[in-house]
């Protein structure tokens, strides 16, 4: 029996060909021709077409608890195990419904506005204790309003032609805000205890949950720029004149006295008859730039901001500042320091505080230039220029023509966006995933409008 088994095994054959399954050839290393053919046959994916437009985005960073960043999950997390985030140290994307053309940061609140002809043109978030964001009706009680607005909420404006008027610019101060439209003048909201909203001061007025939005129309020509200081407002008209109203104890209204003004009044002094192309203010000092490249200042000078012309600490009439730095294109005022940008793209700082030239330079009355190599200019990139300068209360921001954002100054509650909590003594890049078009600086937060790369 064993021999028969052996015999059968020795003669074992493969199953007859008719029963064999037709398997493919065994896989071995593919030849170059096979690889090339496989490559050419592979499908081509298209992620973006030739006419793809760059998207506009908004990035925010800074102190979150006031709601000024517009992300409710930072203050009230949507999931139980997450903790509320106190500070957002790096840029965080804020989803908006429309393209935001102008943004402004106040003291704990933010306004965003779009150029659209839709009914909703302005959104606000943050503190609303003085109705600086208008009346935000509470959903629980129809008669009460919100004190803190955590999400960008539309601000209803009493426009005559809501589907034709466009909002050009917004500006925020300590507790009031201004909205500039193209054909219906300026709308003001918020605290009016010093007349900064341009209407008469009413004694013992409660500003919270107020529905009142005042409209200002009487100027010599159309208003093209509005600027809010801490408790005063400045209006620049097309003819180059500047109007002011609000608190004047530091002379920041520039009207020749130290009293409150509740009606916008034209400024005289050294800027009478001069065509002003830009005004700036954030604290109690103000700067104006004329079309010929001269800069004028008035207001608080306790921090040597105007010490180049006068020794007094309050200047209530605009004075020309004779700086020999070249033709000035743009100026920005902070709480204690000022910054100007010249036509060649150089940046000059003066005042008090962290000015951007290392820890040794604390105060100077004469503008000092910040070396352009700190903004990335080198033999490799000789044509990098600073295009815009902005100021927060104790921070500075500069935008280059390549779309990079540099910040320096005191890092109050992480507002610089560098990812660290230390103060920054010289310009430092903020990594934003896009080309920064504009930035608005506040006390403890910043908002930037960014275009994506492709």
């Amino acid at each position, binding site marked *: 029996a064993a021999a028969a088994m052996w015999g059968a095994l020795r003669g074992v054959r493969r199953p007859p060909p008719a029963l064999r399954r037709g398997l493919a050839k065994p896989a071995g290393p593919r030849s170059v021709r096979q690889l090339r053919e496989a490559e050419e046959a592979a499908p081509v994916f298209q*992620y*973006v077409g030739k006419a793809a437009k760059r998207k506009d985005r908004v990035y925010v960073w800074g102190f979150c608890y006031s709601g000024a960043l517009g992300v409710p999950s930072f203050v009230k997390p949507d999931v139980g195990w997450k903790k509320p985030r106190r500070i957002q140290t790096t840029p965080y994307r804020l989803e908006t419904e429309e393209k935001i053309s102008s943004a402004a940061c106040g003291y704990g609140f933010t306004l965003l506005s779009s150029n659209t002809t839709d009914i909703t043109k302005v959104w606000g978030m943050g503190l609303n204790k003085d109705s600086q964001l208008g009346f935000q009706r509470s959903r629980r009680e129809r008669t009460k309003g919100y004190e803190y607005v955590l999400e960008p909420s539309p601000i209803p404006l009493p426009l005559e032609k809501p589907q034709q008027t466009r909002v050009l610019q917004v500006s925020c101060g300590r507790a009031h805000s201004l909205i500039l439209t193209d054909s219906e003048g300026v709308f003001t909201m918020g605290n009016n205890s010093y007349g900064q909203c341009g209407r008469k001061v009413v004694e013992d007025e409660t500003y919270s949950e107020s529905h009142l939005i005042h409209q200002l129309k009487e100027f010599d020509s159309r208003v093209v720029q509005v600027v809010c200081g801490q408790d005063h407002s400045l209006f620049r008209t097309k003819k180059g004149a500047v109007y002011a109203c609000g608190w004047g104890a530091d002379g920041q209204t520039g009207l020749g006295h130290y009293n409150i003004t509740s009606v916008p009044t034209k400024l005289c002094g050294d800027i009478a008859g001069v065509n002003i192309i830009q005004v700036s203010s954030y604290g109690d000092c103000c700067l104006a730039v004329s079309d010929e490249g001269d800069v004028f200042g008035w207001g608080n000078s306790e921090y040597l901001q105007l010490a180049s012309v006068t020794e007094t600490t309050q200047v209530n009439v605009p004075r020309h500042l004779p700086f020999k730095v070249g033709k000035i294109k743009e100026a920005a005022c902070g709480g204690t320091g000022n910054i100007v940008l010249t036509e060649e793209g150089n940046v000059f700082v003066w005042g008090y505080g962290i000015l951007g030239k*290392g820890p040794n330079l604390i105060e100077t009355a004469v503008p000092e230039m910040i*070396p352009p*190599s700190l903004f990335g200019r080198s033999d490799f990139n000789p044509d990098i220029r600073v295009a815009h300068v902005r100021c927060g209360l104790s921070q500075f921001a500069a935008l280059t023509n390549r779309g990079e954002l540099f910040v320096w100054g005191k890092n109050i509650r992480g507002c610089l966006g560098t990812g660290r909590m230390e103060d*920054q003594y010289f310009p430092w890049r903020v*990594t934003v995933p896009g080309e920064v078009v504009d930035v608005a600086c506040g006390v403890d937060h910043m908002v930037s409008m960014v275009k994506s790369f*492709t």
Partner: protein
Amino acid sequence: LNAAPGRAPRQHVRFLPAPGDGGATGLVAARVPVLADHPLVRGPRFRRLKIGAGHRLDVKASGVFVLGIGHGNALLTDLYNCHLTKVYTVGGLFGKATDDFSDTGKLVEKTTFDHITREKLERILAVIQGTNHKALLMHSNIDMKTQEAYEMAVKGLIRPMGKSPPIITAIRCLQLTLPEFQLEIHCLHETQQYLRKIVHEIGLELKSSAVCTQVRRIRDGVFTLDDALLRTQWNLQSIQNAIWDCQLKVKTELEKTLG
């Protein structure tokens, strides 16, 4: 090398018996070469040469490769501690993505690339340069709050003087003719595979894909393409000339950086 005339043998004074009438006991002092220095006793002067390599260059890349011979190996360590930048020319191709980021790898994806313009590429490169500049300042381990840090940042002298991840100090586009492009990259502490990865990431940022076709090192610290020896020049005379020409450059650079 061994055929070159060697060191002359040492001489010493020996008291040899005076020539002349045999049996006289006078000794004459004579200067004779030491027998131990005779070439037949000593053997060839060079049996082996110690050759050390500078920064690595992998198989798929080409370009300047610094070698140290004998006592030059100590200079190699010093040059490494100088942390000087290297310059590469990197060639890339849009439209393909492979697994090892080079064009000889396995194909992963093919994409369109007709939407890419020079402007978009320059924007991406500017951002890469910006973030790497930030990394440069952060890894250089100096306190940002001091006046010296500010002054060095102004002059552009801040560099990581220790271990750090790869940092690109400068990058720019030399030419862009779709689908090919060429970049010039100045970097520190990098590997060639990292450069290929950068090319791949540039492709991703532009919403397409890219592979690296060529990596060529043009400069390594003080050594440029002009100092490099071609394959036909690998003979003793050219090597000796090259060493002689580079000596001064290397010395000045070491003194400048390491003090």
